[in-house]
């Protein structure tokens, strides 16, 4: 579907009616059914992908079928309602957090205008409070005394096919970025509500292809892209050759090497698509510069985890390969690359899901001797922590002027910022490698605005929605573009590198997107290099 022209869309966001109602709402939200049409939903998961996932040990993706959101009949299993309600019951018992989030919201509305999807669509059901209410209303009806007795008066409603369709619409118009949670006086994690909605929908065979295909690829080949071991190796080799051609530095990288000190894991998009591959070239160059004893893995060849966007079991299974590979290779610890949601999984869940990793050691930088006690339990550190520490100890020779073609700003990728508190390290790195400025303070750090396409919503068929929900971020970039001459949006997330590129092409065409490690690679001065004047850094075409 064609995306509207910029002038049209920006006017519509500011002045137009909400996407849901088409006008100022005249009816109660419960009485407004969702309408699916081309462009407002992501394509359903292909039947063979769902069947494949369901056939895998430990995974549960029943009711695979061909269906379309636009059809009235979604071909739900006959006992779908029972499945949903018992699924909800099970989760209320299993996850204390869900029960609390269902009970404690006072509907104060502090979250309402903090959501990029609400800001971009004007759709009341995209207010985080109301998105949660889609589930909470059913919870009240079937699991609380007040709801059972007073029904609608107590904000309760029966689970119907219409409600189910509403769940599908709005759990896939949330990127689980958790900006709303920052402002919630109770600390309700609305991302977890979305996660539960998606989990419940999977029980009746409702999911989207852009998430389930990468998840099944990752289970099958080790990474979302579906790169088989020989292809993964070829791609990294290819990038290493490019680095050598550009800088004269021969890269001595290895794969699946037992006894290496460090296992390095990054999103597979970094070794497949632009502009992520320049970030990967940055990693290669920096590890070479310091002579790090590390290895890539063709088995644990994905940092990201689309399981996080489906259900707990898938997340756990896909994540398990990291520790399994670290153990097999006998490394001391793991360094992770620039990925966003990967760090929510690693920082908040990995240790309890697949740990304890008592066969690993607390990470120590072999170059500076710094002990990363913050990763004492997970045994995995972020590349930005590692790099910032090197810079702080003067172990990298950097020439900022090699980035003189760049005027950067920094987008805090949602999960590193809000789920692990990684905010100062990337900034410290940028200070040393490039001329850069901050975006307005209500759009950075823990208040960062999402790229608008995270949690597997980075698919082309919902491009208008993506451009709408990305507008708050794009708007902040536009501000520093116009006031400070910014021409590069740096970030530490692979989804960002792909989605912000589309977002910038649409809203701010002269701003490019890069990973922080690319800028490090550009600025690195290495003994024995023969690099000429690389006017576009590692992107220079020879």
């Amino acid at each position, binding site marked *: 579907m064609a995306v509207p022209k910029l002038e049209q869309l920006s006017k519509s966001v500011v002045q137009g009616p909400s996407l849901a109602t088409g006008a100022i709402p005249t009816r109660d939200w419960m009485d407004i059914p969702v309408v699916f049409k081309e462009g407002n939903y992501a394509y359903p998961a292909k039947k063979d992908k769902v069947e494949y996932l369901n056939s895998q040990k430990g995974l549960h993706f029943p009711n695979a079928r061909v269906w379309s959101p636009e059809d009235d009949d979604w071909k739900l299993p006959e006992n779908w309602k029972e499945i949903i309600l018992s699924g909800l019951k099970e989760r209320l018992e299993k996850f204390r957090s869900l029960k609390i989030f269902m009970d404690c919201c006072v509907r104060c509305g502090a979250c309402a205008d903090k959501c990029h999807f609400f800001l971009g669509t004007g759709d009341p059901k995209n207010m985080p409070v109301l998105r949660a209410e889609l589930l909470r209303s059913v919870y009240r009806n079937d699991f609380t005394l007040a709801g059972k007795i007073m029904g609608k008066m107590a904000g309760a409603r029966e689970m119907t096919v219409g409600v189910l369709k509403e769940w599908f619409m709005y759990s896939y118009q949330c990127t689980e970025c958790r900006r709303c949670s920052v402002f919630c006086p109770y600390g309700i994690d609305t991302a977890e509500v979305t996660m539960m909605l998606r989990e419940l929908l999977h029980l009746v065979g409702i999911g989207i292809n852009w998430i389930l295909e990468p998840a099944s690829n990752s289970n099958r080949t080790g990474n*979302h*892209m*579906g790169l088989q071991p020989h*292809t993964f190796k070829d*791609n990294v080799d290819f990038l290493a050759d490019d680095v050598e051609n550009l800088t004269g530095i021969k890269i001595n990288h290895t794969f699946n090497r037992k006894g290496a000190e460090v296992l390095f894991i990054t*999103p597979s*998009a970094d070794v497949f698509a632009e502009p992520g*591959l320049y970030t990967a070239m940055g990693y290669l160059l920096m590890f070479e510069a310091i002579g790090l004893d590390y290895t890539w893995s063709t088995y644990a060849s994905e940092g990201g985890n689309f399981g996080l966007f489906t259900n707990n079991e898938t997340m756990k299974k896909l994540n398990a390969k990291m520790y399994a590979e670290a153990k097999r290779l006998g490394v001391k610890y793991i360094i992770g690359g620039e990925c966003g949601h990967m760090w929510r999984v690693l920082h908040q869940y990995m240790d309890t899901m697949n740990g304890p990793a008592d066969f690993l050691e607390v990470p120590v930088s072999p170059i500076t001797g710094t002990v990363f006690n913050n990763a004492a339990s997970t045994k995995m550190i972020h590349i930005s922590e590692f790099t910032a520490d090197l810079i702080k100890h003067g172990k990298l020779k950097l020439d900022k002027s090699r980035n003189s073609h760049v005027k950067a700003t920094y987008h805090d990728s949602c999960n590193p910022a809000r789920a692990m508190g990684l905010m100062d390290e990337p900034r410290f790195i940028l200070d040393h490698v490039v001329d850069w400025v901050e975006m307005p303070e209500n759009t950075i750090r823990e208040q960062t605005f999402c790229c608008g396409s995270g949690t597997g919503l980075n698919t082309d068929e919902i491009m208008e929605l993506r451009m709408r929900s990305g507008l708050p971020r794009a708007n902040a970039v536009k501000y520093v573009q116009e006031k400070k001459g910014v021409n590069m949006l740096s970030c530490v997330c692979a989804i960002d590198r792909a989605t912000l590129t589309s977002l910038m092409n649409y809203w701010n065409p002269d701003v490019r997107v890069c990973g922080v490690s690319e800028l490090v690679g550009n600025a690195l001065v290495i003994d024995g290099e023969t690099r000429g004047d690389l006017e576009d850094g590692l992107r220079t*075409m020879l």
Partner: protein
Amino acid sequence: MPTLEHNGSSFQVDEDGFLLKGMEEFNQDWIDYVKGVEGISELTDEHNKVIDALQEYYKKNGIAPMVRILSKTTGFPLKRIYELFPSGPGKGACKMAGLPKPTGCV
């Protein structure tokens, strides 16, 4: 899933118009069909070179090549590939060659 007919051949395609069964259903009619939707006026040896390179790579790797690898094996810079296939290497060339669309953080 939609099925479409062209010059007597019928093809099953996904929502994005990619061949559902990939190279299994790929033939000259498919090339001719994509040529039309892509707005390519005449198919040249250069187009064929790109398609052959994509298919050969796919047979070995089960995935489309990195664009830079495609450029290297064909000798065409990215700009030339866009001239040949206006929708680009993914949506244009891969579609014509019967390859699936890559998914993930791309």
